[in-house]
């Protein structure tokens, strides 16, 4: 982005500028100033709601493949096929090909955060707080408004898998690029490609100290931080069969990769580079594979070529390793099936992961066909992010994901990009059980429209979207309400808040 454009943007009301600009075709109008794309048409109510006493396959799909149903989603998905199974299959096909889903609402929701599209070097011109705010808000807004829901769910998954806390060093600026070019670029793509992008992500090189992993002289000891987490958290898993020696050898293979830093140079800031004379040229053995020493007579060019190639050799050894397949399959099944997933599902997913060369959509398709997935319903505790987003979606709230929403996420310890260690936010229920007070508190604040001016629900309209109060309850529960739930709702005098605070809405 050039300077004039930024100054133009800072000049004042974008809305009034857009109005002026619209009538003048000669001006190069930045896209952000143009009116957003027309939102998708919301179907007319009253909506069909789940009628069974248990969660049916359509509700189950909306619980797990999305951040929760909006008022009309059950009806829309159910219509995709003559049976629940056919409807689910059609919905899955759609969601696994996000590039074919028209998504004006998701795009409009984040248009204002154009900083997220900035190239690497430009990011440093922004205040770190501004960047973090944009990242967090865009993440929430996409989860709430995007039609590409399974994609956003997977973004959330990989964002934890390759967790980076941007409070460390230049990751403050560079995490924006990592989110875009690693996580979002590959979330429903190919795992080895994502792994490589992550290994060469400047934010990751900062976060796990890869940038200072070097062998410039005999005294230099490689920094093992990234190598360890690469094996333990990104690929093989802690019991994946590697040794401390393997960690050290991987670290040696990755010596020489670094990032141009803020205080060193203004040119090429944040760019990843390979420094051949900081690369360890000795022989290495990684998980039994020998990587030959780089010949003494090799010139800089040759060292660079061979040194760079060692990164790909290492990733080639571990990227589709059976231990990696099992580790990832377990994590995916924990996410989509249960905290303790059935072994049959894990092995089916692991097998498909390897057979497909780490193709994520193919792997997920296998997961969603397992008996474990199909039969284990309503048992997963929503993590706080999922809870907040699902409540906003269920009530068709408007929101800009600003202060009030972030405040609740922080209180519950689940704000995006705020987890300190590389293992990412925990997936299992136990660590999140203490968050009920804030969930209930949020349910009340949302339904009373006490979350600031930009987060609002229209309770009257919402009620009118369903044939009866039981219909509204069925929408929020994913099944017909029980007699006890109907009674409790009547006694509470606050059906909507009660349902959002109820045990069933905490789960998915």
């Amino acid at each position: 982005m050039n300077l004039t454009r930024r100054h133009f943007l800072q000049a004042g009301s974008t809305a009034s500028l857009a109005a002026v600009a619209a009538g003048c075709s000669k001006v190069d109008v930045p896209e952000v100033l143009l009116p957003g794309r027309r939102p998708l048409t919301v179907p007319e109510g009253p909506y069909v709601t789940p009628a069974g006493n248990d969660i049916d396959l359509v509700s189950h799909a909306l619980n797990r493949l999305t951040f929760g149903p909006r008022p009309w989603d059950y009806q829309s998905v159910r219509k995709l096929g003559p049976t629940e199974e056919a409807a689910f299959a059609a919905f899955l096909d759609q969601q696994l090909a996000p590039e074919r889903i028209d998504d004006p609402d998701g795009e409009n929701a984040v248009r204002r955060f154009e900083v997220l599209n900035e190239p690497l070097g430009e990011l440093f011109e922004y205040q770190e707080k501004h960047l973090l705010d944009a990242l967090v808000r865009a993440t929430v807004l996409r989860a709430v408004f995007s039609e590409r829901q399974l994609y956003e769910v997977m973004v959330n998954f990989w964002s934890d898998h390759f967790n980076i806390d941007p409070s460390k060093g230049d990751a403050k600026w560079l995490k924006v690029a990592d989110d875009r070019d690693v996580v979002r670029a590959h979330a429903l793509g190919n795992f080895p490609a994502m792994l490589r992008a992550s290994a060469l992500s400047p934010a990751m090189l900062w976060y796990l100290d890869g940038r200072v992993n070097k062998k410039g002289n005999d005294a230099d000891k490689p920094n093992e931080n990234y190598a360890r987490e690469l094996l333990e958290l990104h690929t093989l898993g802690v019991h994946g069969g590697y040794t401390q020696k393997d960690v050290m050898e991987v670290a040696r293979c990755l010596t020489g990769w670094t990032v141009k830093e803020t205080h060193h140079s203004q040119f090429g800031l944040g760019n990843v580079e390979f420094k051949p004379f900081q690369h360890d040229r000795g022989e290495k053995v990684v998980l039994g594979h020998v990587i030959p020493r780089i010949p003494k007579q090799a010139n800089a060019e040759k060292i660079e070529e061979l040194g760079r190639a060692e990164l790909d050799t290492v990733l080639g050894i571990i990227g589709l390793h059976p231990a990696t397949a099992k580790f990832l399959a377990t994590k995916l099944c924990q996410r989509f099936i249960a905290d303790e997933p059935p072994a049959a599902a894990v092995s089916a997913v692991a097998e498909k992961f390897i057979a497909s060369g780490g193709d994520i959509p193919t792997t997920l398709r296998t997961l969603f066909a397992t008996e474990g997935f199909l039969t284990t319903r309503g048992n997963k505790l929503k993590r706080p992010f999922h809870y907040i987003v699902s409540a906003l979606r269920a009530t068709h709230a408007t929101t800009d994901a600003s202060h009030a929403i972030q405040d609740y996420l922080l209180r519950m310890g689940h704000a995006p990009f705020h987890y300190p260690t590389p293992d990412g936010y925990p997936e299992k229920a136990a660590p999140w059980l203490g968050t009920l007070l804030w969930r209930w508190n949020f349910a009340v604040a949302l339904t009373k429209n006490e979350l600031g001016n930009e987060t609002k629900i229209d309770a009257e309209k919402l009620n009118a979207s369903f044939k009866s109060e039981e219909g509204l309850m069925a929408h929020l529960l994913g099944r017909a309400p029980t007699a006890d739930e109907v009674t409790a709702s009547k006694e509470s005098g606050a059906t909507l808040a009660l349902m959002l605070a109820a045990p069933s809405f905490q789960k998915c």
Partner: protein
Amino acid sequence: MSTQTSITGNGDQLKTLVVVFLRGGADGLNMVAPMHDDGYYRARPRIAIKAAEAARLDGNFGLNPILAGLATPYRAGELLVVHAAGSEDSTRSHFEAQDLMERAGEVAGGWLGRYLRFRGATTTGALSAIAVSRALPESLRGAPAATVMRSLDDFTLGKGGGPLQASLKKLYAAHTDGLGASARDTLNALDRIKQVRDTTYVPAHGADYERDDFAQGLKQVARLIKARVGLEAVSLDLGGWDSHLTQAAIMDPNMRRLNGGLSAFYRDLGKTMEQVTVVVMTEFGRRVGENSAFGTDHGRGSVMFVMGGGVKGGRVLSHWPGLTPEVLEGPGDLPVTINYRDVLAPILQRHHPQVDLAKVFPAYELKPEAVYG
């Protein structure tokens, strides 16, 4: 209080850590004066604390008379003074030094947040961590639950929440799993907070909190501790210690607040103080030598206070290096002889024996100080 549980499930065993951060670089040398060191008087001919006016702690150190209230817990063996303490940061920049001290290294998140995350407990109550400040401090980043406390009203289900609460109780009663148990704990906590809000708080033992924000913040903390809502970590800020000129005018009101707040808190909590540890720290101390404007510039070592929680107090813990020119660091600063992590580590371990200290203080070889004797 009839019930013995708290929302973290360990009831009266629960310990609370209260961290008071003196922002701006508090002058440890004039808070706890090294009366035994001639270097101190030579370097500060105009602003040193006179030995005759100080509240004597041991043969060597004396409290600034404004902090004389702290002599009470000190003499009761419940206040430990740590001198020439601080961090390894030598930038003498407020921002850098606070950042380092709150994060505990070039790592992500804050040490208090990591402590709560890795303290060895499986679940964390909604009110386990509270910041009494404008925004969540860096130290609490990454905590499993952390709330900036504005008002006790935040901790309710709003006006008319009674019927909603009753209905929730019914719905969750059917759940015998972890979620149901957590709901019952939460409903208990809501009842306790309601009691706290509905009753006028009378501090115990005639404790008298001043009107300033710091004392009032401590008063709310005392209420919540006594109500056993599951408070495990509290962060309070007391800012404005940057005494470059006319040091007394800047420091004295702050020391009054610190002295008044901590004294009232100590008195109010009484025996409960055994379950509560208060740690007072600052990002760096001040230059040993006074400047031309009766002030002091950014330095290195300062003091820490540790109060309550079974600490072996009545001592000044120090590896006093002396204030001779060859000892002073850089432009003339008291060296840091005790790293703040080595004071915090044993405290965290006492509060949670299972804590993973390597994760709380990564890339640092702990040499824990004998805080408990």
